[in-house]
């Protein structure tokens, strides 16, 4: 008799054990929500639009910041100003 045979034999015997009676009178059922999908969909669209807008602003701001802080751009504007 190996280890798994021990489990099988004890399992077969344990299946004959009584199942405790379950009283369902105390079962508390919370309210069920079936329309989650419908109420969530507009929120998902709003979130997607806000994310897209935020990404656009971030790209524009990054480019502007890059230009602003780039030393070559500063020199280029200074030369153009002195030549005009």
């Amino acid at each position, binding site marked *: *008799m*190996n*280890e*798994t*045979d*021990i*489990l*099988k*034999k*004890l*399992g*077969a*015997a*344990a*299946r*004959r*054990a*009584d*199942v*405790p009676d*379950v*009283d*369902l009178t*105390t*079962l*508390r*059922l*919370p309210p*069920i*929500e*079936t329309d*989650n999908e419908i109420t969530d969909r507009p929120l998902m669209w709003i979130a997607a639009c806000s994310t897209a807008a935020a990404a656009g602003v971030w790209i524009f701001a990054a480019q502007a910041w890059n230009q602003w802080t780039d030393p070559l751009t500063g020199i280029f504007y200074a030369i153009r100003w002195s030549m005009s």
Partner: protein
Amino acid sequence: MTEESAAVDRADIEAALAGNKDAFRSLAERYKNPIARRMRRFAREPDHVHELTHEVLVQAYLSLPTYRYKAPFEHWLMKIATAVGYAYWKKKSREQSVRTVPVEECYNLAAKEPESIDPERASEALHDLMDRLPPRDRLVLTFRYIEGHSVEETAQLTGWSKSMVKVQTWRAVRKLKALFRDAGLEQG
């Protein structure tokens, strides 16, 4: 599962989704015993079996909108029962459990004629033996050898792949062998 009982289940599920709690209660009445039998594998105390059965039913009620009739309702409930039982084991594994049946006694009990083994004692012995293993090993050994499910059925119940079930079974059996070896019971 007959077509007739499947139709009764479907009618009750649709009524429950429409807000009729009594329809769900009649479903719960029909399936409370198979659920309690499954939860008995996870918990030894009758109070805990009772609580876990309630928890499975509440989880099933809340997840009812996601049931797609692809599998029989009982199979779907058993998957929920497995998830609830496994979470219970994981929680319990952090606590020190009281063991009353030594490994040697499990061996001696199993050596008896099947009909002469006391079912309650066998259940107690299995809980004590399984308590010594991590939840993943317990789960796979329970389904494969104690409940007698195939690799495919175990994969469906646990949500693991078939190869995962095979690997996990191999690891769990190795740990089980080590338990018996440590108790001085070298097996063939």
